């Protein structure tokens, strides 16, 4: 049984200007020990999915339909209390700019110990501290820095501390939302490598959310490309990167500067993302798509399976193959 199975998830926000359909019809699965990366522009709904999995949607958000089956249980139907027990213990989240999630007036090791004690009331303070020591070793922060305050840590160290906190309760699933955005290139590379190692070591499933395709490409087994609230392509990393089908995936890949691409050859995607309060009924990407024609603006795209693991949401998948 897969660890996480999401079926036809649709989430919307009630705003003053109308009902914003942030996520529509997202379905995906995640096996134990595997990592899944969601990639897409800001506003495509990837963070919303992450929050929904944690049960941390704001008060004006509504899960319109769909199921989130985590270890067989539907998270959508759970009460706040039940979600609180799962949150942190079974599913942990690393937020955007998580470095600001550390309380500036408490020592870092105390904060991590507190997280451990909250979810495991039987654990003693001494044991909790011992666990913190081993966690620090895992994430690569020198032991002497354990008792410091957050402001004494560099950006990379703070992020490692956050990862340690997320790992502290040995969750089955970690959701990492843009975990390395504010970090320098070298630190980012180190943290991503360490995350990969930790994942293998503890057999944790990770959901990576990023707008940067290169991060997701390096770390994840499976990729989900999102556009305007919809999952438009889903598959193994090799399948999506080596043989992308959806024009948006093509465009994303073509817009990233690599070390060998020619000057002037980067293709930008013209146009802007559609209004999600009144999204078009037909394909949401068609007015920015280089391969669209009239059918795309009339028909609703359906899922086509290219292989058992690779599927795409497009009106003309054959044309774009």
């Amino acid at each position, binding site marked *: 049984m897969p660890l996480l199975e999401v079926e036809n998830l649709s989430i919307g926000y009630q705003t*003053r200007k109308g009902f*914003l359909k942030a996520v529509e019809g997202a379905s995906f699965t995640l096996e134990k020990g595997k990592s899944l990366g969601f990639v897409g522009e800001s506003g495509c709904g990837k963070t919303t999915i992450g929050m929904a999995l944690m049960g941390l949607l704001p008060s004006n958000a509504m899960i319109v339909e769909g199921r989130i089956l985590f270890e067989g249980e539907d998270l959508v139907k759970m009460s706040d209390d039940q979600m609180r027990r799962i949150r942190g213990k079974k599913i942990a989240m690393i937020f955007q700019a998580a470095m600001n999630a550390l309380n500036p007036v408490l020592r870092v090791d105390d904060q991590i110990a507190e997280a451990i004690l909250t979810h495991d009331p039987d654990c003693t303070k001494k044991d909790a501290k011992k666990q913190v020591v081993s966690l620090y070793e895992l994430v690569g922060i020198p032991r002497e820095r354990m008792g410091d305050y957050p402001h004494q840590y560099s950006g990379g160290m703070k992020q490692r501390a956050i990862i340690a906190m997320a790992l502290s309760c040995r969750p089955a699933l970690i959701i990492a939302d843009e975990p390395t955005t504010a970090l320098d290139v070298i630190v980012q590379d180190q943290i991503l490598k360490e995350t990969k190692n930790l994942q293998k070591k503890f057999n944790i499933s990770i959901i990576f959310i990023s707008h940067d395709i290169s991060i997701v490409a390096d770390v994840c087994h499976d990729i989900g490309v999102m556009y305007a609230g919809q999952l438009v392509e889903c598959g193994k990393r090799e399948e999506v990167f080596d043989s992308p089908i959806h024009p948006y995936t093509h465009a994303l890949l073509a817009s990233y500067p690599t070390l060998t691409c020619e000057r002037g050859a980067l293709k930008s995607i013209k146009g802007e993302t559609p209004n999600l309060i009144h999204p078009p009924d037909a394909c949401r990407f068609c007015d920015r798509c280089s391969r669209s024609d009239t059918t795309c603006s009339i028909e609703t795209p359906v899922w086509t399976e290219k292989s058992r693991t690779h599927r795409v949401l497009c009106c003309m998948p054959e044309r774009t193959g």
Partner: protein
Amino acid sequence: MTENRIDRSMSDRSFFRKSHWLTRFWDGWSIFKGNLLGRIGMTLLILFALMAVGSFIPPLIDPMYHPMTGVDPEILNSTGPSISHWLGTDFMGRDILSQLLAGARVAFMVGVSAAFMSIFLGTAIGLIAGYAGKIVDTLLMRLADMIMVMPTLLVVLILAALFGQLNIWTIVLIIALFRWPGVSRVIRAQTLSLKQRPFIEAAKVAGASHVRIIFRHIMPNVLPLAFLYMTFRVTSAIIIEAALAFLGFGDPGTVSWGMMLQWVWKTGHMFKAPYWLLPPGICISLITLSFYMLGRAMDEVLDPRLRKEGEVD
């Protein structure tokens, strides 16, 4: 949609600037309407505004209703509510209701003028202090500190004792002179934070002079805050005027609620004429409360964090 926009020429530019304000105003209004305090405050204020406007009516109906000079030929002392005098009369036979209405007018006048003047002064000084920094900032802020710690009411009383009865506009001026420090501190803080923003640096790089930066870039971003503070200033101005009048230092030629309370007290009718004592007191409390509620509701309108609700990633 594009076709419509292309038709508009540059001469419509000013219209669109106004319409931007309109959309912002409309957005703000909808938040305001949703706030319970705002609704109550607004209703009360409208009531008082109507009273102020209506203060011109009674003397037109009959000269005996004039708040200062109207004397009912039949009544020579304080009487309770009756058909010809809905709230009764004061010790001289003047109609209390018309005095109450006139008092509303004075309250608004005093409150709004004093608030406006103190905002004007406070914003100007806060902008200069925040933008110039260093010595100018230090000097101005120490001046503000000195004025801020002085007890306004006491100083005004002393001045009144020295110079005798003060004209209402002098009182307004003095209130303004004592109230600007609070505003200037807030405006200065806002200016300091704006000064660092990239768009100010961009203006510098484009070659803008300091004057241009202050008036074109900083001031428009600081004014909403200034107006918010105005609502708070109004309450204190009204209370100070009422207190002064009550203590006998008000302008004897103006009928204000404080003045009415003074007359009740001085003529010994405090416990004898509740119809005379209660209305002005209640009015002072309510108008202060309504401005305060307005200020609280506006807080929500102006707070950018609250405005961002509903925007999603």
